[in-house]
């Protein structure tokens, strides 16, 4: 099991488009990937879960991946965030 804290840096936060990108990325991995924000945990492969996080810019999310490709999954997700979901 691996954990990683990731901060939302893109200007719009996890709106529909970035949320969809996150879910589509997470779905590529077989590991279970959970997101924790302020004691509220959701499945990163669930678009509805990710949207209920209402994660605006500046919020910090704790990602926990568990499974055979947990490291790859976390680094792929982190890349998305660092790239600001290719917003700019």
């Amino acid at each position, binding site marked *: 099991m691996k954990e990683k804290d990731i901060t939302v840096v893109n200007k*719009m936060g996890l*709106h*529909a*488009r970035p949320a*969809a990108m996150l879910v589509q990325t997470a779905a590529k991995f077989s590991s279970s990937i959970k997101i924790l924000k302020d004691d509220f945990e959701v499945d990163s492969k669930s*678009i*509805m*879960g990710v949207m*209920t996080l209402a994660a605006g810019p500046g919020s910090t999310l704790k990602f926990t991946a568990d499974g055979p490709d947990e490291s790859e999954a976390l680094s792929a997700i982190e890349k998305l965030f660092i790239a600001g979901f*290719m917003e700019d």
Partner: protein
Amino acid sequence: MPNNKKTDVVFKGVAASSGIAIGKVFLLEDDDFCLIQKEIPGNARQEELNRLDCAIEKTRSELEVTYGKINEVLGRNYAKIADVHLLILDDPSLKQDVVKFINEGVNAEFAVFKVINKIVASFENIDDEYFRERKHDIQDVGKKILSNLLGKRSRSLSNISGESIVVAHNLTPADTVTIRESMVKGFATDIGGKTSHTAIVAQGLEIPAVVGLKSISLHAVTGDVLIIDGNKGEVILNPAQETLAKYRSELALQSERRKDLEKLRYLPAQTVDGKTISLWGNIDNYNEIESVVKNGATGIGLYRTEFMYFNRTSMPSEDEHFENYSKVVRAMSPHAVIIRTIDIGGDKLAKLGLLNFGKEENPFMGLRAIRLCLKYPEIFICQLRGILRASVNGKIKLMYPMISGIEELRAANKILKKVKENLRKENVSFDENMEVGAMIEVPAAAIIMDAIAKEVNFVSIGTNDLIQYSLAVDRINENVANLYDPLHPAILRLIKKIIDEGHKAGIEVGMCGEMAGDPFYTPALVGLGLDDFSVSSAQIPKIKKVIRSVSYEDAKSAADQILTLGDRESILKVIEKIKITEI
């Protein structure tokens, strides 16, 4: 049925698309389901799970069909809505919970209903309005699954006739596709505003429509007679005979006028005393070219490129820019196309709820348009390269939006120069003489027009922003929207100043805001000396008709008089007196 009463039942709403329509109501009702909780015995639960799978698969294929249709008819921007629905349908948490309930003995319908309600409730607790509103997407998907489970046809417009007027609480993008195919006469909805999806589609189809009627869908019944007055923003349900007769003759006049306008297509936009004015079209994408050309435009005065950025998961690439622009300029050749670099930010983004650059207190005055491009030059460079590369395929003019001072103009031009240098180094050809202009929509730019005119090849007045910034009126705010007035003497004087300073520097001055597209203002604008009008496709023949009916000399003396006046009433009187004689 027309009633014999003396009084009409009039509903007031927002005029979304102009014109009169009279027809029979086709009421598009929201699905309401009668759901009963049933106990499913253990041996029948597998069957219940199979029903669920069937319903989900059916919903998927429906969504895919809708997606394809929307994509085909309205473009990718709209199709993204169906795409989000597919992601929701595939959401593992949805199915997991429904299956859990079914395994506990709950019937599939009620299990879906319970899970959807639970998810919707969790959205309702979100503070952020954007996220909270996503609950509608979830409800939509839930309804689709339920109607497939119940074997009920989801609401359908497929048996509608061309004589109908569609009345609904709201219309989804999928509904409007059907409307487009079935050629209904008009539509009326409870919700929506002037810039809502429904309104934009109606304008594009040139179908009269009134939205924001609050409760029309509760009062109208299929088969009722309904008059849509898209000019006044009213609908009249089961009108009295007298009213019906009045609107019938207005309708006849309307079709006469349409026929007249069609005849104008090949005639020049020329005043009775021979002054030729350029009449161009405003477009958002390639699909609109056909209609713009059909209506007789001799160029594109405003190609808004921000639509390329909406509803997508990645930035458009340089090649995409190049291909889009090439298609448009090839189709318009030999006429020119003014490509406006992106104006992302402000109302458009907020309305679409998509690319939202953080939470700006005042997005209209925030980071948008050229400001955004100068702050994030990589976005700008990518677009400029696409534009320059496309410039060999036709005639392109480049226009920067939201210029407020010379420094911005120079900074943008500096980037343009650098981009050109790089293209030359790469041996990529482009039009070395591509004209560069500025949109004049910030009052500051209008005031220093003399300085700006010396550094551009043309300007185009963006009246929507110019008016709202000059008068400090947010036109979306209904408390002050009545103060938004193109005839405010300050606006007319600013326009005059822009035109005069432009002419002094020997450049053409155009206008691409809504004021240019309203025939009422055309004589005054001709009189003020405007060279080019750029308007939405449907307005082209109407504006041409007015231009061909006024004398420049008359209009000019009226304009000179207007500029001495300080109040709206007196200005209005002079404008109404300008003589209109058709040629």
